[in-house]
């Protein structure tokens, strides 16, 4: 008992001060009651005196204690008797204005109890109706009245039915004048429930008024809104409620249409959405009674609007209303026809002649026609007849006619669907657009093929419209689509305008995506026919005009997007390649590049196995190379094609490829026994493409031989960099893919006889293979290379090694879902984390300027190939290096370091602004046309760009002191001999002229 008293005292002390603590106590009491450790009666008794105390502060607190405890008891925790006693107690307390909130809370908690006797519903309603005045209470108190009604409605629908009149009256009583958003949200929801389930005939006006007086809601939630109620929540709840009962129609439509005249777009949108909702929810009869009114009001919004300048985006939702009306009216044939006829009659005159309302009328009609097949057919015939009536048309007229027709083909798609996306329409048999098909095709064909090339807009439009026609379900015949393909093919060949060309290409792609055999039949043979026999013809004659032959390749690259087309094109192009003679390297390169792009693109769109190509194309390509491998570009490009074919083939074929290639290249051609041969690059491509699961026979010996061969032939190889890099890449690839002992060559440079550049190159490429793997040996290899940066003899050339380590080479490309090498995704991050501290500490420790420069040069080589995201975290640690690098007497280093600052300036404004007084004079000096070997065009340009970038990143107050100086000193740069530098100086000066000046 004492314990109970303590709890109560604690509760009374904490409530309204520390409500979490109070809740804790209430929860404890509740669980004690549920566990029968405490009798409810005892709690009431203990509270007794407080509950009836005269103290206006104490009484509510005590009531709250009881109510909150009840609230925490589970619904099954109280007996019917308990509830009855408590209800009577609470009902008697309702006139205690000081504790109304607590009382209502108590009643609310009791209603959700399982044993709550419905007999108390009527008294509760009566008391709320008679003794409660919402205006006397705070929002939090009023909340409980809504919650009580809401709980009653949900829990006792039948009893509420029985007392529906009183329930509605009570609701109207408590809801009138409410303005708290949280309460309104319940009020709207409850109103919606009431209106859609109870008999509201006698109360429809009041229920509607208690809703519509809030329309339109312009509520902005406060910043720290604990309830997280959004404006949309409220709008939706209100909209649902207004649309909940057809009886509201006679009030809602006129009122809503009046709100539509508002000029605020938000209000308009809200109104339009509400009207749509009403049409959908209300009965058909209420629509029949109101459709004329709706039509008259809404049509003006469209007819007087500008579809091309619909800033507030009102067109789509209003048009949706028309579609909704049409769909709804369709259940009553008589009124459906009346409506359609009304619309047609009114708009006929707008369509007949070219008025400024023709477009709007067409949009309107198309929205109605998109409602259903029946509506479509009823609208299309009369409308299109009128539209096509004019025989002679100016270009302008043709454009608007095609645009207008386009609205109806869009409706076609909405009603019947496209070839790839059928709508479930039962009777497609009747379709009145079909009878206009020929006329439309002639019109569009004429607009595309017989108008001057200058009419870009018209031609582009007709291509887009023709493309759309080819997608319509059950519309064009195959012959007609073929004709369109012919049009498009001719257009992309002769028209160079980017819009027309682009539209033609996407048209061909679209048609090809549905059925590529049409392209195969018409477009592709035509394109291939234009390809010259040999490389001497750079231009080809198409339709009396000379066009560069590269155009054919561009078209092929763009439209070959599936395997069927790819098979055909690759076969023909590679056949062409094999017919070329040795001098046609450029032409050959163009062809093989086209094959490469096509193969990559098809693989990207839908991957497929190239096993078949291995049998057909692969040997052909090798044969071509046997005949002709004098040109490096050509060789490399064919090699890439070979690699792709291998990569995309099944890996169980790879062992055989490897064995054959070793035979062919290593034994027959003697690539590592004879003299150096550039065909090694083809072998590299094959190795690069193979799955790493294949077994390379005697690989350790092979690699040793390969390295020895490279060392021995270094003089010859140095004259042939392409060949040399082939051998080096092969070393790297084999090390990466087939050697598991990563430390095998860690001591490679420990040679008592001294080393030469070739040893360093070999070691660099071995290190690359280790870095790519992210092997634990990486750090050791990198450190060895790093130490050579301070080497007197090799320091400078070794800087380049660091570029080799991180540059992306396509021979090391890792293909998705393929295991063609051991290249890890995050190797650059890991490398960067190892090298940055080495470079920074090395830079700080050495005094030798050459070595310092080597560190910076290698850093700039690395930064060239590493993404910003990886750099940024390390930026502040090597920013001092960059600052020093700017002053180093080497333009490459200067450029690289300034470029790093420029590309990261957004991330480090504080760092930069703390160095302004050194940076700005430095940049100003370097942007001058002096000492141009050092400050070459690139350096001058980037200095100016950094100066301009400062305006956008550094705090203006820090920059103002430099403003005049910058403007003044840059005036000399305006006379720079290089145009690009002058332009940058102008832009930078302009930025500083405007600094601090606000342009409104």
């Amino acid at each position, binding site marked *: 008992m004492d314990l109970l008293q303590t709890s109560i005292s604690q509760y009374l002390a904490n409530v309204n001060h520390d409500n979490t603590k109070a809740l804790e106590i209430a929860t404890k009491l509740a669980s004690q009651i549920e566990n029968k450790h405490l009798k409810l009666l005892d709690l009431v008794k203990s509270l007794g005196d407080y509950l009836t105390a005269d103290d206006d502060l104490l009484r509510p607190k005590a009531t709250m204690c009881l109510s909150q405890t009840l609230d925490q008891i589970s619904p099954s925790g109280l007996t019917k008797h308990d509830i009855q006693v408590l209800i009577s107690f609470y009902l008697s307390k309702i006139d205690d204005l000081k504790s109304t909130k607590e009382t209502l809370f108590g009643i609310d908690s009791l209603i959700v109890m399982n044993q709550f006797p419905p007999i108390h519903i009527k008294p509760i309603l009566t008391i709320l109706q008679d003794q409660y005045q919402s205006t006397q209470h705070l929002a939090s108190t009023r909340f409980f009245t809504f919650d009580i009604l809401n709980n009653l409605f949900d829990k006792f629908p039948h009893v509420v039915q029985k007392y529906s009149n009183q329930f509605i009256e009570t609701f109207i009583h408590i809801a009138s004048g409410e303005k708290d958003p949280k309460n309104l949200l319940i009020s709207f929801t409850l109103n919606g429930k009431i209106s859609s389930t109870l008999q509201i005939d006698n109360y429809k006006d009041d229920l509607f008024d208690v809703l519509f007086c809030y329309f339109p809601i312009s509520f902005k939630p406060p910043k720290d809104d604990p309830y997280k109620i959004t404006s949309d929540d409220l709008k939706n709840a209100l909209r649902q409620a207004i649309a909940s009962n057809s009886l509201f129609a006679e009030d809602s439509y006129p009122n809503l249409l009046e709100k539509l005249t508002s000029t605020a777009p938000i209000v308009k949108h809200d109104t339009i959405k509400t009207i749509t909702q009403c049409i959908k929810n209300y009965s058909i009869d209420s629509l029949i009674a109101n459709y004329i009114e709706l039509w008259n009001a809404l049509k003006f919004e469209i007819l007087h609007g500008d579809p091309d300048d619909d800033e507030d985006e009102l067109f789509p939702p209003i048009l949706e209303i028309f579609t909704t009306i049409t769909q709804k009216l369709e259940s009553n044939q008589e009124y459906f026809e009346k409506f359609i006829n009304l619309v047609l009659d009114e708009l006929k005159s707008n369509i007949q002649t070219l008025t400024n309302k023709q477009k709007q009328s067409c949009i309107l009609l198309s929205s109605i026609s998109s409602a259903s097949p029946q509506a479509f057919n009823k609208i299309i015939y009369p409308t299109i007849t009128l539209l096509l009536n004019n025989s002679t048309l100016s270009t302008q007229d043709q454009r608007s006619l095609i645009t207008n027709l386009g609205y109806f083909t869009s409706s076609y798609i909405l009603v019947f669907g496209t070839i790839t996306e059928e709508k479930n329409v039962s009777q497609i048999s009747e379709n009145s657009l079909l009878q206009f098909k020929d006329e439309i095709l002639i019109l569009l064909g004429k607009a595309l093929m017989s108008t001057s090339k200058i009419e870009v807009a018209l031609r582009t439009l007709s291509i887009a419209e023709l493309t759309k026609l080819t997608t319509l379900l059950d519309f064009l015949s195959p012959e007609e689509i073929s004709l369109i393909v012919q049009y498009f093919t001719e257009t992309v060949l002769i028209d160079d305008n980017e819009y027309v060309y682009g539209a033609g290409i996407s048209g061909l792609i679209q048609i090809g995506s549905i059925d590529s055999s049409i392209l195969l039949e018409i477009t592709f043979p035509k394109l291939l026919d234009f390809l010259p026999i040999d490389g001497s013809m750079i231009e080809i004659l198409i339709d009396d005009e000379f066009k560069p032959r590269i155009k054919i390749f561009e078209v092929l690259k763009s439209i070959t997007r599936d395997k069927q087309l790819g098979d055909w094109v690759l076969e023909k192009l590679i056949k062409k390649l094999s017919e070329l003679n040795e001098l046609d390297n450029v032409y050959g*390169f163009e062809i093989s590049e086209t094959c490469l792009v096509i193969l990559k693109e098809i693989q990207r769109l839908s991957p497929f196995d190239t096993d078949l190509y291995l049998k057909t194309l692969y040997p052909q390509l090798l044969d071509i190379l046997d005949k002709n491998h004098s040109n490096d*570009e050509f060789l490399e490009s064919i090699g890439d094609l070979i690699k792709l074919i291998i990569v995309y083939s099944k890996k169980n074929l790879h062992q055989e490829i490897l064995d054959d290639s070793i035979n062919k290249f290593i034994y027959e051609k003697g690539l590592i026994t004879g003299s150096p041969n550039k065909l090694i690059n083809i072998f590299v491509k094959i190795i690069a493409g193979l799955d790493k699961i294949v077994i390379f026979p005697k690989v350790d010996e092979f690699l040793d031989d390969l390295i020895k061969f490279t060392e021995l032939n270094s003089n010859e190889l*140095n004259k042939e960099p392409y060949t040399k890099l082939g051998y080096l890449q092969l070393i790297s690839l084999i090390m990466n893919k087939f050697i598991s002992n990563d430390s095998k060559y860690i001591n490679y440079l420990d040679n008592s006889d001294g080393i030469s*550049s070739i040893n360093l190159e070999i070691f660099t490429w071995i290190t690359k293979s280790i870095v790519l793997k992210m092997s634990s040996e990486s750090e050791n290899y990198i450190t060895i290379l790093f130490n050579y940066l301070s080497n007197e003899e090799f320091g400078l*050339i070794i800087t380049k090694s660091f570029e080799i380590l991180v540059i992306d080479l396509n021979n090391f490309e890792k293909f998705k879902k393929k295991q063609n090498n051991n290249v890890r995704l995050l190797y650059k991050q890991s490398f960067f984390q190892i090298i940055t501290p080495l470079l920074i500490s090395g830079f700080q420790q050495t005094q030798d300027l050459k070595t310092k420069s080597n560190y910076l040069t290698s850093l700039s080589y690395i930064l060239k190939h590493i993404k910003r995201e990886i750099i940024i975290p390390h930026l502040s640690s090597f920013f001092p290096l960059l600052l020093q690098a700017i002053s180093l007497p080497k333009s490459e280093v200067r450029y690289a370091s300034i470029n790093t600052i420029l590309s990261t300036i957004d991330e480090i404004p504080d760092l930069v602004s703390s160095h302004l007084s050194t940076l700005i004079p430095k940049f100003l000096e370097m942007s001058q046309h002096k000492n141009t070997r050092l400050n070459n065009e690139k350096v001058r340009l980037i200095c100016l760009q950094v100066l301009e970038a400062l305006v956008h990143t550094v705090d203006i107050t820090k920059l103002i002191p430099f403003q005049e100086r910058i403007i003044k000193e840059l005036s000399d740069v305006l006379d720079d001999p290089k145009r690009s530098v002058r332009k940058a100086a*102008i832009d930078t000066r302009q930025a500083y*002229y405007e600094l601090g000046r606000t342009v409104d």
Partner: protein
Amino acid sequence: MSDVINANPTILDDKSLPTRAEETEKVTERSLNPHLASLLDLSLVDSSNLNDQESIHSTPSLENDEGSDEEEEADPIDSQEIFDLVAHISDPEHPLTLGQLAVVNLPDIQVRDSGNKNEMAEVIIRITPTITHCSLATLIGLGIRVRLERCLPVRYRITILLKEGSHQSENQVNKQLNDKERVAAACENDQLLSVISKMLATCK
């Protein structure tokens, strides 16, 4: 400015304005495959130095970049460059640029420059107001002058004239536009300067 005098001027498409033709790069066989070019760059030993046996190991000296100026091919300032500077200035009363309104035209720009940085040079621009009684001709002229003074080296003398017969009070306006004192005075006027700032804001 609220009263638009010429509400419906002829407008040129922004794309049809004269531009400097893209300097076409010479297509050499080497640049066919950029990837290969970057690969070949990865050789630690520069093959072009090979004839000179000594240079294999002796790395290029650090001081290489210091000293004598490199010969750079100069791009002289020409009328296209001037046109690009002024064509994108906004008209004070239309949301269009002077280029689009054909107020400035490429053939009406003359540049006289000997190329010697120590000699005076001259730019003469003839502007065509959209209508002959255009009251904003002086403002447009002033905008062009401010733009050019900011953008051209100080050795340039800038002359802005109305095209013959394009304006009712041609001489008066010409005098006003090329009067140093009056231009300087106009630039002291903060309100005027902010109008000009707005006009120049669209410059590319």
